[in-house]
């Protein structure tokens, strides 16, 4: 058994002790998160922010559920959107049954319905796909994902064909007089559910089966020699992940009041892998960070550029290549320096690196946008808006300019990055060490 590699996607599971201070501190974290969620709509006054935050909340639950598989259980799934989507469709259908004279089912309970839908299908497909981990699991998840995506084009009764299934959350009976007519009202519902779901998923990772999920991920054979069936451990994790994906799907149904085949397709499954990985699969908060950043970029970038997916793809590849521990890993890396009180020594070298990196990025983005403009607009249009400038895209000058910026920036990064790394190493050294 080799020692863990230094740069890794996983952080080590350090056992939390049951001491009172620890418990209090953890409770404090959850309370603070709750307070933050309550205050957020009052702090962020931009009207478009609330829909984006709703989207973030849904993505957070979905990504956390995905990491129950990938990060906690070592199962790489290419079809997790199946449980999100099916949970959402079921929730939408149930919501359509609710209303005056129909089913008594208030909106706040609906995510539970989605969760049970996700759980049902996870139990069905998990029963055979969790027999093995590794490549076989990944391939079965892909197969199931494609299978469901293909059947969504056939079974119009359930999936609603091209238009999808629409629903209306205002027709459902009220619980405690709570109405969900505005985005802001829905925000509180999503925030509440996200907090509860996150707390439950965190708790799950601390339970016997949650701990064994880590053990099976690390060494499935050994787990079988201490009494656990690796398959059952995986199956339980898989069902739990399917349940919470379904909860996210239910929230989606409430928020958007429509579900289409896209929601359970391969692209949706890929997106959740992307955001989870960017956030960091080795940390509980990783998927939360990833979902928030991903959704933010998605909604911001798509306003400014038609090639935002390209940027997200580049970001994803860069993460895989250079920061496999993700954003959360990047933050965790700096804890020793922070504890040693040396974070300040990093400010200057980091700022310098960031500056030259920004120049590179600007150069590359400029070039990509130029290409995009030249390819996708009619030859009669000659100027484009780029970085708050009007650029004559069909002349040589801007191309040269951006290429020069990219090249100069890259040289700058080659110079600055090792210095930042050295500063990091110096700051992370334990106090007292030479």
């Amino acid at each position, binding site marked *: *058994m*080799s*020692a*863990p590699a230094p740069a890794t996607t*996983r952080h*080590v*599971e*350090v*056992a*939390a*002790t*049951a001491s009172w201070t620890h418990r209090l501190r953890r409770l404090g974290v959850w309370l603070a998160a709750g307070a933050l969620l309550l205050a957020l709509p009052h702090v962020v006054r931009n009207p478009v922010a609330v829909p984006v935050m709703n989207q973030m909340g849904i993505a957070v639950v979905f990504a956390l559920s995905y990491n129950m598989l990938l990060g906690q259980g070592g199962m790489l799934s290419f079809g997790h959107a199946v449980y999100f989507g099916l949970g959402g469709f079921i929730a939408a259908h149930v919501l359509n049954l609710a209303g005056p004279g129909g089913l008594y089912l208030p909106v706040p309970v609906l995510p539970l319905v989605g969760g049970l839908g996700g759980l049902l299908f996870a139990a069905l497909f998990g029963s055979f796909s969790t027999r093995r981990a590794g490549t076989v699991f990944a391939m079965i998840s892909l197969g199931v994902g494609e299978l469901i995506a293909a059947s969504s084009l056939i079974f119009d009764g359930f999936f609603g064909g091209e238009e999808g299934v629409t629903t209306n959350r205002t027709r459902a009976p009220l619980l405690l007089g709570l109405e969900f007519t505005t985005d802001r009202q829905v925000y509180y519902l999503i925030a509440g559910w996200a907090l509860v779901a996150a707390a439950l998923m965190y*708790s*799950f990772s*601390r*339970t*016997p*089966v*949650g*701990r*064994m999920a*880590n*053990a099976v*991920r*690390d*060494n499935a*054979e*050994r*787990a*079988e*020699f*201490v*009494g*656990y*069936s690796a398959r*059952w*451990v995986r199956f*339980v994790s898989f069902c*739990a992940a399917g349940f919470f994906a379904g909860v996210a799907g239910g929230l989606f149904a409430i928020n958007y009041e429509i579900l289409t085949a896209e929601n359970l397709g391969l692209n949706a499954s890929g997106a959740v892998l992307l955001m989870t990985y960017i956030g960091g699969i080795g940390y509980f908060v990783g998927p939360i960070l990833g979902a928030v950043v991903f959704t933010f970029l998605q909604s911001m970038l798509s306003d400014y550029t038609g090639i935002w997916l390209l940027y997200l793809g580049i970001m994803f590849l860069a993460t895989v290549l250079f920061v496999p521990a993700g954003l959360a890993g990047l933050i965790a890396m700096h804890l020793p320096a922070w504890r040693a009180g040396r974070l300040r020594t990093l400010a200057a070298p980091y700022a310098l690196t960031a500056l030259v990196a920004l120049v590179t990025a600007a150069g590359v983005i400029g070039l990509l946008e130029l290409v995009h403009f030249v390819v996708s607009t009619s030859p009669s249009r000659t100027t484009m808006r780029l970085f708050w400038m009007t650029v004559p895209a069909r002349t040589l000058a801007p191309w040269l300019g951006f290429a020069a910026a990219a090249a100069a920036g890259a040289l700058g990064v080659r110079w600055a990055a090792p210095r930042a790394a050295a500063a990091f190493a110096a700051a992370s050294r334990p106090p007292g060490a030479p």
Partner: protein
Amino acid sequence: MTPAIELVDVHKDFGGTPIIRGVSLAIEAGTRQALIGPNGAGKSTLFNLITGKHAVSRGRIRLKGEDITGLRPYAINRRGLSRSFQVTNIFPWLSVLENVRCSVLWALGYRYSFWQRVERARDVQERADAVLEQLNLTARRHVPAGVLSYAEQRALEIGITIAGGADVILLDEPTSGMSRSETEQVVQLIREVTAGKTLVMVEHDMSVVFDLADRIAVLVYGEVIAHDTPERIRASAAVQEAYLGVPQTTG
């Protein structure tokens, strides 16, 4: 009294090559049994058959009188048999404490529960702390197991094996690759943690074997050629010839 482990005419082929060729062996409960034999004799394979890692090609295996032939490793473990591995086999990304905790969960009845937290389970905590203390790894409890030193990993390997409290313990070369003093510590540890239990141990260090074992079985080319007390094994001409070759110095 029913033997702790009973093998009846056990055979194992790998791709047509016979590796275990008709082993019948009864191991009395509460004894310390050594299994010796040259490299490649099939000692680890025999462990793999007993613990359910591999299926036997022919024959029956009984644990405390119950037939366990063909059961999966976890099912056998739940019946009170636990083993260590010749090549260290731990959970490298989990902390040392987590490694031990994971090994006591099933034995303490936690099964696949997802409604209670491990760190609130007092019995798990106490058992894990006690095992860490025995292993002398308390100070290293929060270190990832993968970065422990070789000797520490070997100790943890034994810890994982015994933490669940199984009463039949199989150890595969627990002292291999260790220095003299490390070996002595491990022997002391084994003596402690297997007191009152059935121990089956593969071991190459003859001083350890003659020190610990009540009975010795000699496996050569997949066959048990002798099974007796240490004195008689030492005296046996057949063993001398087939295995020990030159007279061994012990102690």
